[in-house]
């Protein structure tokens, strides 16, 4: 078994266990910390796929900025295990069953899709994920969406300030 396969299975197990712990933790602060672990596992998958730029952006933007924002809001509201609202047990069972049905349907669809048999995702090699190539594409072919996204950020900032000031 090659080292990349071992890393793949380790990161997969880490992502799935951490994602389950996000749901199962009673304390919202622990949920945030488990979600940070999920994001680090996904960043590891990006590195394994040689998408280095996305791995770094995922770590900085998601695990860094967004999760710290969540943590701030949770601590601002002083939420803990005692104030955590819980659904009754039947609603939880119904939610788990319907999510499981969705997963089964997805897996059945993927299993009978013949287009994807024998295809592999390129690990470790391939240069499209490097910052040089992505930057060239981003500032030549995709420069208009890039500039529009700055307008989106501006409007989101204005919206957050207007909502927060009320």
């Amino acid at each position: 078994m090659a080292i990349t396969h071992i890393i793949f299975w380790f990161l997969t197990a880490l992502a799935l266990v951490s994602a389950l712990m996000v749901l199962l933790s009673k304390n919202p602060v622990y949920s945030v910390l488990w979600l940070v672990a999920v994001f680090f596992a996904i960043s590891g998958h990006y590195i394994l796929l040689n998408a280095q730029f996305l791995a770094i952006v995922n770590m900085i933007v998601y695990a860094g900025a967004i999760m710290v924002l969540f943590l701030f809001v949770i601590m601002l509201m002083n939420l803990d295990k005692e104030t955590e609202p819980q659904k009754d047990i039947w609603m939880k069972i119904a939610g788990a069953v319907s999510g499981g049905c969705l997963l089964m349907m997805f897996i059945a669809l993927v299993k009978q899709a013949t287009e994807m048999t024998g295809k592999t995702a390129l690990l470790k090699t391939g240069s499209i994920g490097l910052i040089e190539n992505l930057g060239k594409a981003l500032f030549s072919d995709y420069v208009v969406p890039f500039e529009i996204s700055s307008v989106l950020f501006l409007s989101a900032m204005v919206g957050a300030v207007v909502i927060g000031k009320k």
Partner: protein
Amino acid sequence: MPIQYYIYLALSLFSIGVVGVLTRRNAIIIFMCIELMLNATNLLLVAFSKMHHAIALASNAATQVGIEGQLFVFFIMVVAAAEVSVGLAIIVMMYRNTHSVDINFLNRLKN
């Protein structure tokens, strides 16, 4: 690595996010599960981008096929960051009005 493994991983993460949205009542946790679903789709996009790159690489060594998928992931991250800032502002406003983040308090919209 076969593409199916990545598809199964992303679908499992997505389904866990769906179960979280359905079973939790804390608005912040629901929001975090939505982030989890976004990340599952990001992982799938990157895996498919590398899959198409591998196919194109067999005929042309200098090809750039598949770079669109990774740029799309970049734009999804941009939109997600904007969404989180507005969404958390809405949750803070809701907490100020009801002193709770329980989404069942929001059913007053029904009447």
